[in-house]
């Protein structure tokens, strides 16, 4: 019993420590890193280092870009996933089951394989270097559709829909007046999950964006690569780019975890 708490506390420590230590380094001066023993408490240099980050890369622009991209993707994913989830969970149409199976199967497709044609497509559309290249392909995804399908088939009473029908509601009317209010808690969790993964996305933005118009993650990698021995600079940027998300997570962690665990169980 006591061993279990001890183990879990140890694991929790190892989960949190690297993040804590990154703040320690980010709030120090580069020379402090050479000390023996290494510093284990935060210093007073954090804001000076963050200012240096903004001087080195266009970090303000990067934050804005990430906010726009992750924000629009989240809203779109919430909307389209709820729409498709409603159809899969509660409407009758030919080929429904096979379409749902295909949707789930697409989650297994290794996305990285198509990266070269996807890039060529973006060149053709003249979207390279713009946020469209990040937003449009991500407007809806299989995970979101599956997630909302599962939630709505459990949480949306069929009688409520039938009552709506009797009152003369069209399918769209049902979606608007009955489904959306019911879907709100799950859609909110989906939105947060989507926002986090869009905010953290790195490889595709790196390929398709220019360094002078980056997202946060692309700017961070520039920071970390161009100034190889300046760990303080890299970690100060990391802290600014990561802490907002960690904060959101700390506040809504319970709901987010509930969402992840619900998405995992097959309905």
């Amino acid at each position: 019993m006591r061993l279990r708490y001890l183990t879990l506390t140890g694991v929790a420590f190892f989960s949190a420590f690297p993040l804590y230590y990154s703040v320690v380094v980010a709030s120090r001066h580069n020379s402090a890193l050479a000390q023996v023993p290494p510093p284990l408490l935060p210093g007073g240099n954090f804001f000076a280092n963050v200012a240096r980050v903004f001087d080195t890369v266009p970090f303000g622009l990067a934050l804005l870009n990430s906010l726009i991209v992750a924000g629009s993707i989240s809203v779109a994913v919430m909307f389209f996933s709820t729409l498709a989830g409603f159809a899969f969970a509660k409407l009758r149409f030919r080929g429904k089951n096979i379409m749902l199976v295909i949707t789930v199967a697409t989650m297994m497709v290794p996305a990285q394989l198509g990266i070269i044609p996807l890039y060529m497509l973006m060149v053709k559309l003249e979207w390279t270097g713009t946020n469209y290249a990040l937003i449009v392909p991500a407007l809806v995804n299989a995970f979101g559709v599956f997630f909302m399908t599962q939630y709505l088939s459990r949480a949306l009473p069929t009688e409520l829909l039938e009552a709506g029908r009797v009152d003369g509601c069209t399918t769209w009317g049902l979606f608007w007046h009955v489904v959306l209010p019911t879907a709100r808690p799950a859609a909110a969790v989906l939105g947060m999950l989507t926002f986090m993964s869009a905010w953290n996305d790195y490889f595709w933005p790196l390929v398709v964006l220019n360094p002078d118009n980056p997202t946060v993650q692309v700017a961070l990698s520039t920071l970390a690569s161009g100034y190889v021995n300046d760990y303080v600079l890299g970690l100060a940027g990391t802290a600014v780019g990561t802490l907002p998300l960690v904060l959101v997570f700390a506040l809504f962690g319970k709901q987010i975890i509930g969402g992840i665990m619900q998405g995992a169980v097959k309905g």
Partner: protein
Amino acid sequence: MSTLPLAVTRRRRRGVRHTLDTRVSPYAYVAPFFLLFCAFGLFPLVYTAWVSLHEWTLLSDTQTFIGLGNYGTLLADGYFWNATFNTLSIGILSTVPQLVLAVWLAHLLNKRLRFATLFRISLLLPNVTSVVAVVVIFSQLFGRDFGLINWVLGGLGAGQIDWAAGTATSHLALSVMIMWRWTGYNALIFLAAMQAVPRELYEAATLDGASNLKQLRKITIPMIRPTIIFVVIVSTIGAMQIIAEPMLFGQSTGSGGGLATGGPDRQFQTLALFVYEQGFANSTFDFGYASAASWLMFLAVVIVAGINFLLTRRVKGGLV
């Protein structure tokens, strides 16, 4: 038609609209996903195969059909095999201990527990951290001269390890990063499955005097086998595509050799990174060659995922 009373036409028209509404509109609701997947998922995948049969670069406007030529060159390319080896090595090193650890952690969490939410949140904290942040942070921790890990190891009597320089050490460092980011997430997935296992099974086993470990082996694991299979497949597919970690590790440790080579001696270049190098980081922008490598990678993903599926299915269970 003109002889029909007005009311009947109206009813019929309403009937058509009603049919449209109930029969057709569901397709419109699921259409956005399928359209988007076809345009940005399926089409690129299929087109990759077409490109791979050509001599095709970003710089030239003409493309020559060369059949399987790119594949022949690839199979004779030592760098390709090196990347394949690295991918498998990092994949095994990171996935196997990670999943064992995740099952065990889920088992520990699947009891009445004080601070349960706090433990779960701290487990998922690494997963909220971006891959860039993870590698930047761990590159500092794994630093040769001033890294915390070498400092601790030095206290235990080990010498200064240049983690990024060696094949084995760099694979180990990368695996630690991947495990740190994903173990907690997978533990929560396992936990969700474990919570669906009927409590009575454990109560009966406890009455029969089965130990904790025996309960895990004989009840929990057989009961959550579908989830284990699912997680193993997803993790395998993820592990075969690892790219950001080696890319950033090479950059932020300053071990030289450029963005995409995975260290000066390609000691940690993965397959996905090899594809990126050929397509985007090389001066030739060889899309044809990179596409061929993509398809061989796809083949490797399918084979390895298939093997793992068969292996996991054979996991012995006492009950089912």
